[in-house]
């Protein structure tokens, strides 16, 4: 088969343009789409904040509760230099208090139906 024959067969004949019914159908879908409320975005920022605070609380739990439970830094989970830092306990305590306050405010807001 020659190239020009193949070109002729593959080029084919275009379809006639679709009519007004097609335009109407597309515009009906577009109007529906425009009228629909935009999707609520996932709260990535809040999730990141929550995860960070939770991580701090876990560290606080290890530092504060492990000695009280009779474990002195089990399996070397926390570096000794970190455990001995003077700023660590106050910083963790402040973070924990802030997190607990934020959490209780959010829970109150959710149950009272308002958006903070």
């Amino acid at each position, binding site marked *: *088969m*020659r*190239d020009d*024959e*193949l*070109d*002729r*067969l*593959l*080029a*084919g004949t*275009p*379809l006639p*343009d*679709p009519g007004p019914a*097609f*335009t109407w*159908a*597309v*515009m009906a*879908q*577009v*109007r529906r*789409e*425009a009228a629909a409320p935009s999707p609520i975005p996932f709260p990535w920022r809040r999730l990141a904040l929550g995860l960070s605070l939770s991580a701090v609380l876990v560290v606080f739990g290890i530092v504060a509760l492990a000695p009280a439970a009779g474990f002195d830094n089990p399996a070397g989970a926390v570096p000794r230099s970190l455990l001995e830092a003077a700023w660590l306990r106050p910083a963790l305590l402040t973070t924990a208090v802030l997190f607990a306050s934020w959490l209780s405010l959010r829970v109150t807001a959710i149950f009272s139906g308002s958006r903070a």
Partner: protein
Amino acid sequence: MGDEADRDDVRRVLDGDVEAFEGIVRRWQGPLVNLAWRFTRDRGRAEDLAQEAFLKIYRNLAHWRGEGVFSTWLFAVATNVYRSALRRTPLLTLPEDHTALLPAETDLERDAVARDEQAAVRRALAALPARYREALVLFYFHEMDIPAASKSLGVPEGTIKARLSRGREMLRQRLAGRVLGPATAEGR
């Protein structure tokens, strides 16, 4: 002129005038349905896919950066919609007809031969691997314009050329002895 009208309509849609999208639909519905038809060879499915493409174009209008011609972006979005749809629901490939066509003697016979040729090419094209089929479809849709086909598919021009060459070779092999063009038919 067409591109100015497109840019104007896009600006209006982005400013909140949904009805301005109708101008884009009216200007491009013919080419988009035709492109879908070249992928599917089924008018009903082509119109459904073109509707889906227009909806995607409407949703993503803000992503068009306005750097190139609007139609280049529009064909690229539509091509992606059609390719994804065909991956989800592949074409129904009918068994190939292995009967060689005889030379035509009358107009009616020539019409029948032409229809059979088109059907044989359609089946052979549908049976090609997607990458070669897509390159051939876009090359002929864009009236044999390789840069336009490469932009619609989002691949380099060299890749299009290689796929066209391989695709045409595969088509030739599949159609060998089965299709007779008018020149060949009349020459016998």
